[in-house]
């Protein structure tokens, strides 16, 4: 192929968020040649948007915290569908990873003793989130980026992987196009790490960017890897709802961590009315206790606003359904009220939540130090993803690793806030380490020109299909919007079998239409073409999420079924796994949850 660029790396990393950069830094420290590809510019990955903080049991604010408590909190939050080995490693290694970041220049907010300050977050027993105001992700990503550019890693920015390449069972490289010119590249690699993030763009209301089209999930699935827990999609309780154009943009849980409260149109603080059994003992039963908790009173229990996200999101939906929502279809989130308790509330809010202050001021014309915000649930995070080994992060396909949001296992049925940023560091690091080891055992494999030629044809098909008659056919954006609309309505926060089946039918129809989709223009920086190519990924993850949702006939964590509103004993014991059949169909099966060791069981019993 004449215009094909060729690169060879020992370890190829796809994605430049926290997971990808951590992996790249670790792999290159292991002495192998590392290349990293990302769809956007370096420093723009989703991680940059994270706000609240990174969870690690440093015990700086409350010395009672320990990795054991963090482990138990994570398991409980995930309703015990988590891979316990991952939850264990995560809790054990997160503190070291956070300290390592400090050594690379990250500057977290401090305690009075000059240590890293930690804040409260939903589902975490003790103040555990290291943070920098409400721009923790920026601090983390920039630190990794500024450290990473000096480690001999080769970066290929604005380059999108279109397909993974295999030799027999093993993944041996990737085929990609660059956005600027639409040139194709072959990346040969002895090990590939997926660090591509999530798939919130399958829904209409989301906090996620254009990048979140489930590419990594789909690339891995098409290459024979298994996906797990795809039914568990986190709807964050607090996204902006007004004005319409900002609908879905995240309002950090940090607002509630700093004392913000949720109210309905009657001015009632409704969260006290519905506290799940699992949390009754650890939740405040009056407003004063809740307030004291947010201010660091160690004897107080958490306010119900800081219950897990799945629960808070459903309580908000119930208020709205009961006609007690705010004018634009949300509920009220009030941080201004803290002036009843503290003298310099305005300055305090601006210091603790600067980007929230800025975001509401600029985008909604609201001063959060004076007025309540309007918020409602937004599609935020995919707990499900590529099934990996807990220690090595290798998928079920040799040579293919996954870390960060695109990997499954750590979070089970629901992720705790702050546990993603720490996930990226811990498992990015582990994936980098094990991928480097794996790479050292293999040589590069030649890839046939014919195969590459076919991929090129496939990638160019939407452009080739375009002619003047196509201008009437639905464009790539229309298909994407259609998918987002029905996924939001039919596979959203509250699900029933009939609607999900309806969604499956619609996905089937769109799959046919995608075969005809045409994109105008040429190969040069053409978002229409890129969107057309992403549709296959979006449809694959949408189908996987829907099928898994139908399969799990119970309500647990982020997956709530109106037709099966209770938890089921049987489903408590299984994860749902999806893989591709030889004929291209989607295989779905249940596998037993990875058993807890005796030691893990004891820790959970002692700490829940």
């Amino acid at each position: 192929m004449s215009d094909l660029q060729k690169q060879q790396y020992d370890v190829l990393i796809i994605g430049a968020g926290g997971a990808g950069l951590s992996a790249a830094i670790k792999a290159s420290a292991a002495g192998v040649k590392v290349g990293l590809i990302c769809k956007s510019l370096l420093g723009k990955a989703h991680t940059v948007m994270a706000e609240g903080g990174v969870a690690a049991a440093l015990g700086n604010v409350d010395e009672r915290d320990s990795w054991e408590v963090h482990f138990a909190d994570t398991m409980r939050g995930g309703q015990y569908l988590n891979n316990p080995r991952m939850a264990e490693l995560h809790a054990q290694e997160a503190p070291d990873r956070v300290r390592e970041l400090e050594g690379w220049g990250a500057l977290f907010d401090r305690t009075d003793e000059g240590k890293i300050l930690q804040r409260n977050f939903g589902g975490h027993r003790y103040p555990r989130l290291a943070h920098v105001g409400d721009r923790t992700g920026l601090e983390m990503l920039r630190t990794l980026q500024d450290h990473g550019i000096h480690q001999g890693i080769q970066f290929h920015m604005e380059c999108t992987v279109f397909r993974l390449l295999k030799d027999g069972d093993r993944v041996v490289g990737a085929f990609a196009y660059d956005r600027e010119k639409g040139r194709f590249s072959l990346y040969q690699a002895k090990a590939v790490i997926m660090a591509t993030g999530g798939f919130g763009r399958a829904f209409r209301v989301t906090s996620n960017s254009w990048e979140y089209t489930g590419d990594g999930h789909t690339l891995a699935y098409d290459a024979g890897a298994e996906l797990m827990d795809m039914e568990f999609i986190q709807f964050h309780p607090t996204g902006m709802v007004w004005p319409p154009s900002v609908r879905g943009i995240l309002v950090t849980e940090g607002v509630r961590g700093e004392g913000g409260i949720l109210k309905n149109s009657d001015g009632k603080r409704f969260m006290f009315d519905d506290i799940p059994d699992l949390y009754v003992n650890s939740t405040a039963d009056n407003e004063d206790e809740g307030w004291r908790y947010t201010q660091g009173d160690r004897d107080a229990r958490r306010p119900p606003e800081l219950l897990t996200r799945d629960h808070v999101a459903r309580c908000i939906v119930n208020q709205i359904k009961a006609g007690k929502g705010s004018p634009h279809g949300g509920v009220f989130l009030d941080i201004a009220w803290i002036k009843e308790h503290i003298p310099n509330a305005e300055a305090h809010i601006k210091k603790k939540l600067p980007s929230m202050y800025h975001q509401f001021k600029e985008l909604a014309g609201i001063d959060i130090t004076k007025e309540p915000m309007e918020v409602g649930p937004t599609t935020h995070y995919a707990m499900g993803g590529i099934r990996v080994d807990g220690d090595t992060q290798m998928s079920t396909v040799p040579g293919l690793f996954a870390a960060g949001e695109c990997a499954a296992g750590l979070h089970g049925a629901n992720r705790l806030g702050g546990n993603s940023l720490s996930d990226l560091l811990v498992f990015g690091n582990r994936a980098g380490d094990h991928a480097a080891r794996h790479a050292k055992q293999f040589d590069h494999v030649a890839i046939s020109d014919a195969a590459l030629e076919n991929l090129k044809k496939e990638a160019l098909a939407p452009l080739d299909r375009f002619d003047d008659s196509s201008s009437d056919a639905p464009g790539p954006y229309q298909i994407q919007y259609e998918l987002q609309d029905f996924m939001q309505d039919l596979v959203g926060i509250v699900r029933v079998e009939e609607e999900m089946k309806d969604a499956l039918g619609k996905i089937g129809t769109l799959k046919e239409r995608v075969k005809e989709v045409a994109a105008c223009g040429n190969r040069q920086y053409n978002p229409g073409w890129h969107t057309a190519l992403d549709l296959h990924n979006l449809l694959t993850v949408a189908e996987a999420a829907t099928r898994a949702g139908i399969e799990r006939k119970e309500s647990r964590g982020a997956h709530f079924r109106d037709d099966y509103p209770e938890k089921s004993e049987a489903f408590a014991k299984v994860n749902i796994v999806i893989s591709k059949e030889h004929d291209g169909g989607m295989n779905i099966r249940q596998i037993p949850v990875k058993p807890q060791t005796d030691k893990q069981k004891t820790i959970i019993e002692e700490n829940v």
Partner: protein
Amino acid sequence: MAKTQFKIWRGDKEGGDFEDYTTEVTEGMVVLDAVHQIQAESANDLAVRWNCKAGKCGSCSAEINGRPRLMCMTRLSDFPLDEGVAIEPMRTFKIEKDLVTDVSWNYKVKEKIPKFSPRPADNADGTWKIDSVDTDRVQEFRKCVECYLCQDVCHVLREHDLHDEFIGPRFLVHIAGLDMHPIDIETRTKQLKEEYGIGYCNITKCCTTVCPENIKITDNAIIPLKERVADDFYDPIKKLMKIFKK
């Protein structure tokens, strides 16, 4: 709701021009929404960068009615819409296509700046004792989202095209963030003077005016760095300024 006229610059490095588009503007819309709407309705291949839509990633920089702004943080209600809105790429950088510019120069500049190097850890567990008061100043610089709007507006780069001699306000902020970092021990003053061209800055403050993060680039980063350079070289600022004015 109203139909509004937009002029969007279309083209590539070979050349281009403004093209007219019309789209419906609804309450609360920002410029980026309009661009996306136009992209979906009538210009599928319109090239534009964005990620977060909330001013956090610094991807969507452009010049809107001649002013460098983040498209996602610029509300259409700020403009008299009957006069239309003109959107064009940042002019300091080479065009890739439409609103997308080649910002790779910035990445190269950053790579050559000596990286963060901490003093030995204070505590046995490898951690440092850092006081809150010492973080505040540096955290201002670390808010930078690398939108490069300050680079776009700085006349040293924009008009005088001194990309080889001057690293621009973004990287002076970056160096301020490193040099004033409470545990960094590297010094970068020699490079500031000899390689990074800090002397070219004549404190016009245009960079500060456009910074979406409200970083006081000139007062808090550049002037203190100039003072450091002056202290280290006994070389009064005035002399550098003269060189520039020549």
